[in-house]
């Protein structure tokens, strides 16, 4: 839906149309090389779904985008900002301070497989905390904003519930609302439905689908092939630390060109 944004012409770094520009990311944990040169560009409004076998590096790649992991080689730009770095006076790339990294992360939403809601805060307070502490928003304004975000994920009636009193699907929707409250330029989802009971997966996917329709830029790790087919502009197949194939859902699911994609799909479909 967003690929029409003249992607070819606008691929220069820092261009307004390019939200994610990940270039040649390498990442090792000890002697294990988990990412072996991953590059990915995502334009504004685009939805990219990452698939691939367990251990292929999908989570690690996602975590490099918001600097939960620091790439050994390569760099990531989000919305024109070099993530985790800045240029010093001499034009050299140096590490950004913790505060600068935090400011960069504020515009990148991250939705976790296990929700990670703050258990000692109500749904409302979970959503309010970022705006209050990070954006220094007043409590009243944050409350109004939080209620609007909860409304959007269909949970305004559960605003005063604690996470322990919510179902898995409800928790994940609150977590999405918590990210949205920061008005992110980009949302990252790491298997948002794989910790959920089958009967509540649908309600979370509906929320993500609505976001896609509103034009939210998203990178989603998911094994929900039917969902990917429906919302993804492109699907990227990860294997062994690399993107082995990338294309529209039709290309990738119906006419995969790589043997590894075919064998992976034959297992999950």
């Amino acid at each position, binding site marked *: 839906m967003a690929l029409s944004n003249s992607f070819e012409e606008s691929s220069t770094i820092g261009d307004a149309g390019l939200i994610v520009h990940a270039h040649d990311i390498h990442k090792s944990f000890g002697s294990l090389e988990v990412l072996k040169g991953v590059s990915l560009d995502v334009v504004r409004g685009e939805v990219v779904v990452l698939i691939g076998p367990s251990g292929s590096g999908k989570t690690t790649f996602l975590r490099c985008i*918001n600097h*939960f992991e620091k790439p050994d080689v390569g760099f990531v730009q989000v919305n024109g900002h070099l993530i985790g770095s800045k240029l010093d006076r001499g034009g050299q790339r140096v590490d950004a301070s*913790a*505060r600068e990294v*935090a*400011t960069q*992360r*504020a*515009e*990148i*939403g*991250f939705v*976790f497989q*296990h929700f*990670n*809601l*703050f*258990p*000692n805060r*109500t749904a409302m307070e979970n959503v309010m*905390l*970022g705006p209050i*502490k*990070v*954006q220094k928003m007043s409590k009243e304004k944050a409350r109004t904003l939080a209620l609007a975000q909860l409304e959007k994920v269909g949970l305004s009636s559960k605003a005063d*519930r*604690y*996470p*322990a*009193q919510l179902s898995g699907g409800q928790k994940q929707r609150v*977590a999405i609302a*918590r*990210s949205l*409250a*920061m008005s992110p330029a980009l949302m990252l989802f790491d298997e948002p439905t794989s910790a959920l009971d089958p009967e509540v997966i649908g309600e979370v996917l509906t929320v993500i689908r609505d976001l896609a329709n509103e034009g939210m830029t998203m990178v989603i790790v998911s094994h929900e092939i039917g969902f990917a087919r429906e919302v993804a502009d492109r699907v990227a197949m990860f294997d062994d630390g690399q993107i082995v194939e990338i294309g529209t859902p039709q290309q990738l699911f119906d006419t995969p060109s790589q043997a590894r994609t075919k064998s992976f799909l034959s297992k999950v479909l």
Partner: protein
Amino acid sequence: MLISTLQFDTSFFWHELFGPSSAFLGGLWRTVYISIIAQLLAVVIGLLVALARRSTLRILRGVAGAYVWVLRGTPLLVQLVIVYDGLAATDIYRFQDVTVLGVTILASVQAAILTLALNESAYMSEIIRAGLAAVDVGQNEAALSVGMTPTQAMRYVVVPQAMRFVIPPLGNDFNAMMKSTSVLSVIGVPELFLITQEISSSTFHTFEIFMDAALYYLALTTIWAFVQTWLEAKIDRSWGIERAQRSWWASIRERFQDPKTLGIGRRA
């Protein structure tokens, strides 16, 4: 004379129990406030030490580790004498009575609060460290993901959650703290134990007055057990967790009888 003191003077016992002398009450009051202030200071210092032990700076970790090692590895009694008598004898620091807003704080009481706070802070730092470690790393990441700095994530997300894991062992330490104030008598703090000893030597009613003192200590630790039970339930409620309905009596009994929670042999 000798014969009469061998008998249990019931009226003296009841009289001191229900109408204690002002000296006795003064000692009790000192025991209470010294314990509370020392424990509060210990929590604050302990938190700083626990954070220092998680620091990325190696020197800071080393200093904090040494602090805990020394304070936990030496008896409270020895620490007390060093702080109060040792520092004065070497002219390094001599505690003086100070009067703030018309209230005089004895030199020995200042030394007592300081030493108890430092000693307990070493134990608190370990308790808080375990509490921080018990908070899921995903909580920290969730805080970072909305744009908090690591310091904000610690302050607004991780530390408040660690409290839930810290309160039960902290409560046991405070129970021990109230009892270990009795060693303050060696530096002449007129707390419950020293006052009891003085009453004992002036009246020769040793058994009666120490039984009274024991009952007062027991009352203090029992009241604290109630406070702790209430506090734990309150924290659970603030997480939206309703405790299984247990009678308060059962939970208090458990607190006093479970060998793990008694803190036996931990202190000098």
